Each structure stands twice: as C-alpha cells, then as structure tokens.
C-alpha cells in the first residue's frame, strides 16, 4: 500500500506533534520529578544524622575534627587535679570542693576548650557531674581515656584472652556509660603502651612470642598483638557509639607502621610527644606512616630550671608558644603544613606535687625540685647534674599554693597561661605575614 504525499505529510505532522508532546512530557518530568527525586534524596540524607563528633577528610587530604557540624580545634589540657599532700589514688572526681569549677573558669578565660583525663574515676555519677559541669558552665569538652591495663601488676598481658576480655569489657562499659554525655569529645585508647612492646617498660610476652628467638621479630610480634587488640576494641566501640571518634594513644610514632595494618579502624592517632621547641617532622612522618588525623595528646614543658635551680616560667612559656605555633601551622587547610593536625593537649593544667617520689607520702606536701628524667630537647637546663632536667612536679600551666581558696589549693596561673591565651586569641597561622581568621 502506497500512502499519498498528504497523508505522509499528515503522518509526519502527527509524528512531529507526538514528538513535541513526548518532549513536553519529558520536560515536565524533568522539571517535576528530578527535583522531587533530589528532594527525597536530600531529605533521606538529612534523616541520616551525622555523628555528633567526626573526622572530615578534605579533598586536599587534610583532616578536620567536626563537632556539631562545626570545625573544632582541640585546645586542651591534661587534667588531674591532685591536691597538695595527696597522690594519684585521691578521688578528685568526688571532691566536695569541686576543683573543676574553679579550674573550668580559669580554663575558659584562657581559651581552653577541652580537657583530657587518662581514665575516668570509679563513681560514674561523679564523673558525669564533672563532664556536665565543665560543658554546661564553661563549654569545655572532655576526652576520656583508658589505660588498657598498662599499669596492671605484674604487667599488661596483651595476647592473654582472659586479660584482654576483662580490659575490653572495662572500656566498653566506659563508652556505654558516658557516650550520651553531651560534653564527651572522643575516646583515647592507651597512652604510651606501645613502648611495652619494645621490652624496656612494663614488659610482657606470650608463649608464642617467647618461642621466637630473634628479639627484633619478637618486638614486631608484640606490636602486632597490641595494635590488633586496640583495633578489636575500636570496632566494638564503633558499634555501640557511632557519635565519637576513637583515638589510638601512642608514645611518639613508634610502632605505627604495624598499627596501619593491625588497627586500621581507629579514627585518629593521639601522640605523646616531648621534642622541645618544635615537633620536627612529626606531621609528615605520620602522614607517610599511618595517614590518620593527629591529636597531640600530651606535650609541653616544665617550669623549673634544673640547672639554675629555680622556677622559670618563661622557659615553659617559650616552649609551649613555639609548640602551639607548629600545631597551628599543620591544621587543616594550612598553606604549607601537612594539614593532619586537629589540635593539642598540653601536659598539664596544674602541678602535681606527688609525682617525683611516689612511694614517700611525706614528700607529697613538698614540691620536689629533683628531676628523674632527661630530655636534651629542652636545652635551657640540660646542663643540670646528670643531664636530668625534666621536673615532673612543675609541668602545670597553673602552679599550686598551699594557701587555700574556695577550699582548694590556690591556683596561680603561670606565664604560659597568659602567653598561650594571647596566642589563641591571635594565632599566627603561617610565617608569610598572612594572618587567618580566628579559630573557634
């Protein structure tokens, strides 16, 4: 059958019309359905709540700590307010004079936004009260840590199932108890426990490790055992608390090459670093070894000149200011920095008078001027006898006085308090004369 030209034309017109209609329909679909789908998608996204605290990895590979969806630079202090005359066994959490209120006020005025405690006290209600008071009254958040049995007698038994299960339960109980406290910032697992894998402090082993004749291989086996255990706990924490990051506490960067494979799930690394004026190549080394965000979870300087045998607040302020300058130079989006640092926690808020001679209670009421360790990076007083220049009882940003105030040993801010306060108000972010916006 042959169609006439008109018919063909008419057919063509009809087809064209039909095409137009289809296009219109498609256009309508595009105009209505696509935004609708997007809206549904966005609503869906919005209904999946972001964790309260999380790490954001930026396109440039830098890391930011986000709290309530806002960038947060940790400006912290280690906190262990042991009064003069007491030692580490003192339960300050239940102190009726509430030292954290006096300290919290001073901290807030200085610009501190975070405290770190190494392990919560036994009375969970008392602990919650401290966390709440600090958060609600001063906006200060709390990092809670756990020693992971590092100080257990005779030694931590990593690799031993019974020991590991017991410690893991303690950690998970801690997380379950405090995870809903709005003031909690994150968890730190361990402190300098990695040094025990090298065998010089708190040494431990397992039957399998003992069978290995090569001491170097033994160290590697220990590191893998320990970090795998941390990785296992991290996974369990993530299951019960998706709202707070988990940090691996680590002395220096030692052993992190094994952590990379053995505990890849940790959200960040919390390093204890005492390198004097600066942190050297720390930020870059971590980037290469184990590309995780870095929290300087313990650093600082003491305020006693062991060589001249007198307090030297300037020396402490000098080191701390220099250290903070480097921390700020390596925050996310820093121009030339590595961008993996999320802040720092100075050791420590207040002096602790019990630390030098822990076994002699009569010395806890005296601030000892003796040093029991040496660190050449703190060079002003390294010529002290035996090069012992680190005075454990003089690390406080605030000194303690036996004079009582509010029922507590009087707090006397040292020079570092004011120097760091000024630094935080107006941080120097780079050295090319460009100042950036003030941090939170």
């Amino acid at each position, binding site marked *: 059958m042959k169609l006439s030209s008109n018919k063909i034309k008419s057919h063509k017109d009809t087809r064209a019309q039909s095409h137009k209609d289809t296009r219109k329909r498609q256009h309508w679909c595009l105009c209505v359905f696509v935004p609708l789908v997007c809206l549904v998608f966005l609503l869906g996204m919005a209904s999946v709540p972001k964790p309260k605290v999380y790490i954001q990895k930026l396109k440039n590979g830098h890391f930011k700590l986000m709290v309530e969806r806002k960038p947060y630079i940790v400006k912290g202090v280690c906190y262990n307010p042991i009064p003069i005359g007491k030692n580490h066994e003192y339960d300050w959490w239940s102190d009726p004079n509430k030292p954290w209120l006096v300290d919290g006020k001073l901290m807030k005025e200085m610009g501190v936004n975070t405290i770190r405690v190494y392990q919560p006290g036994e009375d969970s209600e008392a602990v919650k009260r401290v966390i709440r008071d600090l958060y609600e009254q001063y906006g200060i958040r709390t990092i809670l840590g756990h020693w992971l049995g590092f100080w257990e007698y005779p030694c931590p038994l990593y690799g031993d199932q019974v020991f590991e299960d017991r410690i893991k339960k303690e950690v998970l109980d801690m997380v379950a108890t405090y995870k809903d406290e709005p003031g909690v910032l994150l968890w730190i697992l361990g402190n*300098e426990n990695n*040094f025990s894998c*090298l*065998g*010089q*402090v708190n*040494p431990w082993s397992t039957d399998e490790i003992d069978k290995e004749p090569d*001491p170097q291989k033994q160290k590697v086996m220990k590191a893998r055992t320990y970090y795998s255990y941390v990785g296992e706990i991290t996974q369990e924490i993530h299951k019960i608390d998706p709202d707070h990051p988990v940090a691996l506490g680590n*002395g*220096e960067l*030692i052993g992190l090459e094994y952590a990379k494979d053995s505990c890849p799930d940790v959200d960040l690394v919390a390093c*204890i670093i*005492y390198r004097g*004026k*600066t*942190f*050297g*190549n720390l930020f870059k080394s971590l980037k290469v070894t184990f590309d995780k965000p870095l929290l300087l979870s313990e650093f600082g300087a003491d305020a006693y000149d062991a060589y001249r045998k007198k307090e030297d607040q*300037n*020396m402490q*302020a*000098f080191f701390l*200011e*220099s250290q903070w*300058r*480097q921390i700020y*130079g*390596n925050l996310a989006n*820093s*121009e*030339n*920095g*590595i961008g993996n640092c999320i802040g720092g926690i100075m050791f420590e808020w207040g002096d602790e008078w019990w630390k030098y001679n822990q076994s002699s209670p009569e010395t806890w009421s005296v601030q000892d001027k003796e040093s*029991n*360790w*040496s660190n*050449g990076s703190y060079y*002003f007083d390294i010529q002290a006898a035996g090069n012992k220049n*680190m005075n454990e009882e003089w690390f406080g940003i605030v000194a303690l006085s036996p004079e009582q105030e509010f029922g507590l040993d009087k707090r006397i801010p040292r*020079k570092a308090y004011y*120097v760091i306060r000024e630094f935080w108000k107006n941080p*120097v972010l*780079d*050295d*090319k*004369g460009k100042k950036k916006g003030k941090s939170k």
Partner: protein
Amino acid sequence: MKKTKNQKILNFALVFCILIFGFWISCFAQEGNKLAGLTKQVIEAKNNSDLYAPFSELKDIYFKENKYSEFSEFLTSLLAKNKALEPFINYYIALSRYQQLKYLEEKQNWDEYFSQGNNYRDQVAANLEKTISLTAKNDPLHIYGQLLLWQFHRDQQDAFEEEALLNLMNYVAEYANDTSDIQPIKLTADKLASYGEKGKSKELYKIFVDKMLASNITEEELSKAALEFYKQANLDLSEVLYDAYIARITKPDNKEKVIPILIDIAKAFSYKDNGPSDMSYAEQIFQKIEELGPDGVFNEALMYLRAYNLEKAKEYRRARDIYLGLIKIAPEGAHVDEAEYKVGIIYVYVLKDIKTGKGYFEKLAQKETLSPQGASALYQLGLLAHWENDFVKAKEYYNQLLERAKEGFSDTVALAKTRLKEIDAASPIDYNLQAFLGASLKEDSMNIDAAKSNLSVSLYAPKKDQEVKILSGSYELENGCMQVELQYLWSGELGKITVPSEQLSLSPALNTSYADAGTKVINVLIISPTGAVDRGLVMVDVY
C-alpha cells in the same frame, strides 16, 4: 708637705680621668665618623656591587653591640634617602630581626621575646620576600635572601622549611650557571654544612669546585686551596677539591708522581688525636694508592697508619686484614707486637673466634722478650682460661706474667693479681668483667656488634699518666616519659679511674690514666632493667 702630696695625687687622678674621657670621646667620634663614612658610601654607591662591603661593615658595627632595633631603624631611615637601596635594606632588616630573635632567646630576654617575637618573625619573612622579589636570580643578594629564609624556617622547623631548602638549592644552581662570583655558593654550602645538611652542602661544594675548575685554575692552586680548607677544618670542601685535584693529576704515565701526593693526603686525613681527620676519606685514598701503586707501595709505616685508621673507625674486620698484612711484611717491625695483640683482641671479642685469637696471644707470649702487648697477651690467655673455668691454666698464665713482668707492666700485673686472688678465694670473676665476657663470648649471647658501639676516647694515644676520658655515647632507649635507668658496667684495663667505684656503674663516662705503656683494652656493657642492651670495646695505645 702632706697637702702638696695629696694635691699631686689629686692632680694626677684628674689628668688620668681627662685622658680616659678624651680617649673615650675620641673612640666614640671615630665610630661616629666610621658610621657616617659608611652611610655616605651606601648612599653614593653607583651600583649594587659597591653596596655589599659597606652594608656588611655597618651590620658588624651594630651587631657587635647587639643593637638590632637601632640597626633596623637606621636602615629604615636610609630608605627615605635612597629608594634604590630597598633590596639591601630589606635583607639587612630581616637579618637584624633574625639575629635579634636568637639573641633574645639566648639572653632569655623574655619580655621583649613574647611581646615582639611574632612581629619580628613577620618582619623577617616579609622583608626577605621583598628582597627575593626585587633581586635578579644572578644577584648574590638573591641567594643570601633565599639562604636566610631557609635558615629562618629551618630554625623554626616549620612547614616552609622543605620548600625553602628546595628553592635555595635550585636558585644556587641557577645562579651558578649565570655568574662568575662563586663566593655565595661557598657561603651557602658552608651554612648548610653547619646545619648538618651534609649531602646538600657537598652538592654545592661540587658546584663551587666545578666553577673553580672552569676558571683555569692551576693544579698547584687547586692543591693549595684544598690544603687551605683542610687547615680551616672544612673537610667536606677540602675533600671535593682534593678529589678534583687527584682526578686532574692522575694520568697513566705519571703514577710515580701521584703516589707520594696521595700518601700525603691519606696521612693528613687519617685518624689523629689532635687535628682534623676523616677516617673514611683517608681509607678511600688508601684504596686509591693500592689501586695505582705497584706491589709493595705500602711500607710498614704506611700499612700501620692504614690499619690504625681503620681500627679507630671501628672497621675491625678490615683493620684485622691490614694488621695481618703488616705482620707479614714486617715480622720484626716496630708495630708487630701491637698488631698481633690487636688482631687477637679483634678475633676474640669482635668476631667471637676465641681459638684463632688465642693463637695470636700465644705467639706474643712466647717471644723471648716480653713487650707490653706480650704481657697483656698473657693476661688475656689467663683470663680466657679463667672464664672457661680452667683455673690451673689460668693461674699458670697469670703467674707467668707476674714472673716475667718483674717490676714492669704495673697496670696489667695488677689485673692479674686481682684475678689470682679471685681464683684463690674461689670467688667469681669481677661482676662487670664476667658480664662483659658472657655477653661477648657465649654462643647464645646477645647479637650486638661491638664494632658499632658508641664508645669514644678523648686520646687514643696518650702519654703515661696523661688523663684520658672514655665516653659511652648517649644510648637512647625508646621509653617516652618513662625513664629507664641504665647501668654502665665498665671493665678491662681501666687504669687509675678518677670516678669513685660506687658511682662508676651509673656513669656513661670515666676519666683515667695509665702508668705503663702498651695497648689497653677497655670494655663496657650497658644494662637496662630488662637486660643487656649494648656492649663495646676500645683500644688505647699508651706511649
């Protein structure tokens, strides 16, 4: 009369004061004149090259009295007079603030440090940026700006350090292509070397020397320059120059001429207690001599020097080989006893080959005339038998030593007497020595290479009764803040120690001296609470 005398004294004092005041005024005026003169030179300079010297002198005047802020103010005032001076002024303001920060830290002038520190740092960075942007790449000031910028970031170990170093190296390389003034290259290399950037400094020294070679420098001038830098203890640059010099003079047909020159260079760089030495470079030259020279090029003295140099570099295996070569070519030579004894020590305590080591000790002990090393060899034979619980044999060796030593070798004899007392009292060998022997000789003992230990001695060739300091380098255990107390178990031929014995085990250093000539072996075993972590030995030759 008395009044007149007093009057005279008063007059004299008055005149003295006037003279002193006059002198002071004159100095002040001279300095003022100098400043004015230099300022005039700077303002009237016709080109940049005329500015380097007066600016440098001005800097010296102000820096001598640590007047950094005054210098900065003076420089700023100069800028108002002549805008063309801007690159120099920026550079010297930066240098002034950089030095000022160092000075404030050194003098612990904290008030100014904390109140002005950031301001000064900003000034350093900003002024250097300006200097760099205002100068051409072939201008020495450009290089000085880059160098100071790197130093500034390096001192702070900040995020810009790496970039600044990279820029510096690149700009110096570019500069070298485009200029005949090579001093900035050397100055940069010197500075890099002083900061411990050995690789980078050598790279620049190489460029510096290449530029020298390209300028038709004669062989004699090259050698003279190398020697001059050697005398200045700039061994890196001296070595690069000597390498170039050796390459230039070495031709297939003039080996005979080259060998004595190489020997002189090797001697200069070999280990010596006083004066510059680079043992590794000396050995490189010895190898070159071996390569070029005929058989027998190493005479007894040269072979001894080479072995001694290797021994001091703790290259014990190579030292043993050369000492053996020495014994072979000069079996009756002046150093043969020392060589045999050292070979024995290396076999026993470094290579754990007790049997071979004993063979060398026996050889020494059997010599008709007992040398200091022969006496020590008898003691070692006794000690090894003692350690192996062969008390009869041990006593035999110790007694033989006492008998043959007569009135001599008091240091070694004293040790033998102590060991004999231990055997007679059925008590164990001195704890430190026993621990060292165990760690060194047992099959299952720790696998620590004594050659790599960090022991050093202030004088390896002291005279009798001359004080010697032996130091175990800081042994860093990785413990973080948890300090581990280390014990240093010193043993061996310790001589007259000045540290009280109860403090000895805690001290990483000891001071001693020796009453008799001979080769003294000193041992240390480093113990942490969990066991031995390191061991080491050194040999001191007392003359």
